[in-house]
C-alpha cells in the first residue's frame, strides 16, 4: 500500500461539500438531496434510519440541514448554530475497508495525514427516539471531532442485518478546521475569488438571528402543543393504515415541534420525559412497520 496523500484544500465551504459528494458518488452511493422536513440530525433522514432496516443493500450520501432550536445563539456564538449542515453517508452492508474509504474522504478535502493526528476515539452512538444504537467512534483530527462513525446494531428496537456503516460529518466544524477559521460566519461559502464572494454569514447570519428569536421568544407554545397532538394522531392513524413512510414523517414533525417547545423552556423535566416517550413510540412504531414490510417485499 502506498503512503496516502492529500489533495489541495478546497476553495470554499461548498467546494468541500462537492468534493465529498463526488468522492462518495465514486464509491457507488446514490447522492440524495436533503429531506424536505425539519430534523435534528442527518441520521433521521429516512434514507438512513429506515433504509438501515430490512435485508436490502443500500448506499447513499447527502447533505442534511439540521435544526436544533435550543442550540441557536442569535448569531453571536462563533461555534454554535441552531441550523447547520451534516453530511451523511450510509453503506449497507458496510464494506470491509470502510475505515480506509472514510480516511480517503478526509484526504480528498485537503487533510494531510502526514501532518495531522487522526484518531478513532470510542463513542457509541445512541438515538433513543428511533430506538437505534451502534458502536463506533468520534473521529478526531488534532483533537477536533470531525465525524461520527457508527456501525448500526439496532434501529427501531430491532437488530439490523446486514449491518450498515454510517458516517456523519459536521460540515461547518470540519470546514472551519480545514480553512483555519475561528468563526463559522467567516467561512467562505463560495469561492472567495468569484465575482460575488459570499461568506457563511452572508448566507445564514440573519437567519440565525431571526430563528433564535422565534425559538426562544416568539414560538407560540399553545399552538405548538396543539400541533404536537395533531402530528401524533396523524402518525398513529397512518401507521394503522399500513403506511410507515408518511407515519414516520409525522413522527419527525412531532419531534421537531417538541424541540421547539423544549427550547422555550416550557416543560418540566418530568413532562419532558413524557414527550420524548411519545415521540419515541411514533418513530419506533413507523420503523418497525417499515422493517416488517421490507422483509415481506424481499421475501
Amino acid at each position, binding site marked *: 500500500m502506498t503512503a496516502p496523500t492529500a489533495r489541495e484544500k478546497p476553495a470554499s465551504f461548498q467546494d468541500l461539500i462537492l468534493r465529498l459528494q463526488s468522492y462518495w458518488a465514486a464509491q457507488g452511493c446514490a447522492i440524495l438531496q436533503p429531506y424536505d422536513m425539519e430534523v435534528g440530525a442527518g441520521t433521521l433522514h429516512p434514507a438512513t434510519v429506515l433504509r438501515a432496516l430490512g435485508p436490502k443493500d443500500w448506499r447513499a450520501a447527502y447533505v442534511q440541514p439540521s435544526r436544533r432550536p435550543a442550540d441557536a445563539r442569535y448569531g453571536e456564538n*462563533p461555534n454554535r448554530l441552531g441550523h447547520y449542515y451534516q453530511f451523511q453517508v450510509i453503506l449497507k452492508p458496510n464494506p470491509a475497508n470502510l475505515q480506509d474509504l472514510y480516511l480517503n474522504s478526509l484526504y480528498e478535502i485537503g487533510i494531510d495525514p502526514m501532518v495531522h493526528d487522526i484518531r478513532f476515539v470510542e463513542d457509541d452512538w445512541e438515538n433513543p427516539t428511533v430506538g437505534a444504537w451502534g458502536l463506533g467512534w468520534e473521529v478526531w483530527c488534532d483533537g477536533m471531532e470531525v465525524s461520527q462513525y457508527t456501525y448500526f446494531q439496532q434501529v427501531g428496537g430491532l437488530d439490523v442485518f446486514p449491518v450498515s456503516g454510517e458516517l456523519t460529518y459536521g460540515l461547518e466544524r470540519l470546514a472551519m478546521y480545514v480553512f483555519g477559521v475561528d468563526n463559522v460566519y467567516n467561512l467562505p461559502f463560495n469561492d472567495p475569488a468569484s465575482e460575488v464572494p459570499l461568506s457563511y454569514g452572508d448566507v445564514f447570519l440573519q437567519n440565525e438571528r431571526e430563528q433564535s428569536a422565534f425559538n426562544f421568544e416568539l414560538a407560540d407554545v399553545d399552538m405548538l402543543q396543539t400541533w404536537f397532538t395533531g402530528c401524533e394522531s396523524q402518525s398513529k392513524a397512518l401507521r394503522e393504515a399500513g403506511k410507515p413512510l408518511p407515519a414516520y414523517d409525522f413522527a419527525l414533525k412531532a419531534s421537531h415541534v417538541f424541540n421547539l417547545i423544549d427550547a422555550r423552556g416550557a416543560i418540566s423535566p418530568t413532562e419532558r420525559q413524557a414527550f420524548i416517550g411519545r415521540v419515541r413510540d411514533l418513530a419506533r412504531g413507523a420503523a418497525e412497520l417499515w422493517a416488517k414490510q421490507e422483509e415481506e417485499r424481499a421475501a
Partner: protein
Amino acid sequence: MADLLLELFSEEIPARMQAKAEADLKAALEKGLAEAGVEFERAVALSGPRRLAVCVEGLPAKSADVKEEKKGPKVGAPEKAVEGFLRGAGLTSIDEAEVRSDPKKGDFYVAVREVPGRPLQDIVAELVPEIVRGFHWPKSMRWGRGELRWVRPLQRVLCVFDGKVVDFEIDSLKSGNQTEGHRIMGRGPFEITSFEDYKRVLESDGCVVLSREDRRLLIDEQAHVTCLEKGLELVEDKGLLDEVTGLAEWPVVILGEMDPDFLTLPSEVIQLSMRTHQKYFAVRDPKTGDLAPNFVVVANIEAADGGEAIAAGNSRVLSARLDDARFFWDNDRKMPLEEMAKKLSTIDFKKELGTIADKVERVAALARELAPKVGAEPDVAERAARLAKADLVSGMVGEFPELQGVMGGYYAREQGEADAVATAIAEHYKPVGASDDVPSEPVSIAVALADKLDTLVGFWAIDEKPTGSKDPFALRRAALGVVRIILENEVRVGLQTTVIRPFARAGVRIVLQRAVERQDKIQELFDAGVLTENQANRLLLESIEQANQERDLALGDEAWAKTSVVIQDLLAFFADRLKQYLRDAGARHDLIDAVFALGEDDLVLIVKRVEALGAFLESDDGANLLAGYKRAANILKAEEKKDGKAYDGAPDPKLFEQEEERALAEAITESVAAAEAALQAEDFEKAMGALSSLRPPVDAFFDAVTVNAERPELRQNRLLILGSIRDALHRVADFSKVAA
C-alpha cells in the same frame, strides 16, 4: 520446542477495554492449551489500539500421548454386564481388555485405550476460533453480513506456529501470517515468521510500540521531559495516562499553548475541559504551583512538520472549549445562587421523594439541627444547605456534571458568601470515593452529613435499597461517607436520634402519627436536657416496641411496624458500612459484632469500644476471663433451655455455701460498679481493666463450686451467679460473639 504467535488485528479498540482483553486472551489461550494437555514455558501478551497479541513459548510439536482406562466388571460377571462394558468402551471382544487383580475385589476387566497426542497445529486451529467466538467484551458488535461478534470489526488473524501459518477460518476470515503497522507511518502489510520477527518488524518499519507498559513509560517520560525543558511541571494524572496509552500506537508528546486569559477560569474547569473533552494533561508553573497556559497532548504520529499543525489545531480546539466554559462562567455569575435554587423546584430528586427543592428544605432543617453537635452555627449551616444544590441548574454544571458543588463554592465566594458557606457548598458531596478526603470544617460536616442522611432515609422510606451488586443511587457510598465523616471528625451523634428524626420530618406517610408525637416528646425532653442521649435512645427504642405492641393489640396499623423495621434496617446498613470501614482498618470482625450487639449507635464510641476490647483480649487476664465467660455462658445456655427461663438478677447471699461464691459475687458487684463509672466516663480500657479483676474469683469459683448442686435453690442461686458474670461482661461487649 517451538513458539505460537497469535494476533487479532481489528479496527480501533476502546482504550478502556484493552488491558482486560489482553489478559483475557492470554488466560483463554493458556487454559485451552492446558486442557488439551499441552505444556509450555510461558505466555506473553500485548495490546494496543488495534491489536491483541499473545505469544506462547516453549510448545511441543504435539500434545502428550494419553492412556485412558475404563474399569469394567469382575471376571466371571454375567454376560449382560460384560456386553455392556464392551459396548461402552468400544471393544469388540473381551480379549482386548486387560485383567487386573485387586486384593479385596478379586480380578476385574479394564479397557485401556491409547490416545495418541495431537499435532499442535490441529489443537490451535480448533482452539483459536473457539476463543474468538466466545470472547467476552463489555460491548460487542456485528458488521457487514457476518454473525461474528467482536468489539469492532476484526480485520486480520495472524496465527503462526513454528514459523508456519496455522490454518483456520473464523466466519470467512482466514488466518494468515500478515499484520499491519501504524496506519500512516508504516502500514505494511508485513509477513511474520516468529515473535522475535513480529516485534522487530512492527517496532521498526511498522512504527508500533507493542507493549502497553512500554508505551505508558514512554509517554510518562516524554511528557515530564517536555515540560521540564520549558521550566514547567506536568500535572500527574494516572487515569488519563492509562487512557492515552490505549489511544496511540506510536505516541508522540507535544506541548501546546493556550491563551493565558483563560487562566482566570477556575482551575478545576480548565483541567476538566482538558481531560474529559480533549484528553490533555494540564501543566503547572512549579514556582507558583498555578496552572500554566500550556497543555500536553499525546499524538499518534511523528508529523512531517514536527507537530506544528497538531499543536496549533489542538490549541484552537481547546480555545473553543474554554470559550464555551467562559461563557458559562460569566453567565452563571450573573444569577445569584438563591435565584438558581428556585429552579430546583422543577427538577425531581426522585419522583416519590419530591423535587430537589424539597430535598433542600429537608437538608437545611437537618443541617441546622446537626450544627451544634459539630460546632457550627445553625444559621450558617442552614444558609450553606439552602445554596448547596443551586449550581445544579448552572450552565457550567450542565456541561460538567463532575463540577457539582465545586462551582457552587466558586459562585458563593463570588457573591460574597462567608468562607464557611462557600467551602461547605464546595465540599458537601464529599467524600465521593474511598480515596477522597472527608470534609473537616464544621459547617461542611453539618451539610455533608445532612445531605447524605436525607438521601439514605428517603430511599429507605420508599424501599429503594441496594441489592447485590446493584446500587444505582450510590447509597453504599453515601452511608460509608456518613461513617467516615463521623469517625474522622469524631462527631458525637447517635444515629438513632439522627436517623429517626428525618423520617418523621420527611413526612413519609408510613410513620404512625401517634408514635411520632411520642418521639417528639422524647426529643423535646432530650433537647431540653432532661434526658441524656442514652436515655432518649432507649425511650425511642421502647416507643418503637410499644408501637409494635399496639399493632399486635390489633390496632391494625402495619405502617408503623414497617417504619420501625425500616429504621432498624437502615441502622444495620450503617453497621455494615462501619464494619467494612473497621475491617479495612484491621479490626477483628467478631469484636465489631460483639460491640454492635449492645445496640450502641454512637459510632465514635463503638470504635473506641472495639479498640479497647481488642487490647483487652490480647492480655492474659482478658483471654482467661473470656474462657471463664464462655464456660459460664455455655452452662447457662444449656440450663436456661432446660428450665425454660433466663437466669437474670442478683443471687441471694444467704444461699452462699462456699467462700468462692461469696468472693465472686462481691467481686462482681465491685467491678461492675467500677466498670459502670468508667463507662460513664467513656473510658473503655478502664472499664475492661475493672472487669479483668474478675479473673481470679471466676477461676476459683469454677475450680471449687459445683453449679448443678442437688438442692434446687442452691443450683438456682449458682446459676444466678453465672448470670451476673454474663451480665457484668455484657456491659462492655457481647462476649458471646467473640471467637474463642
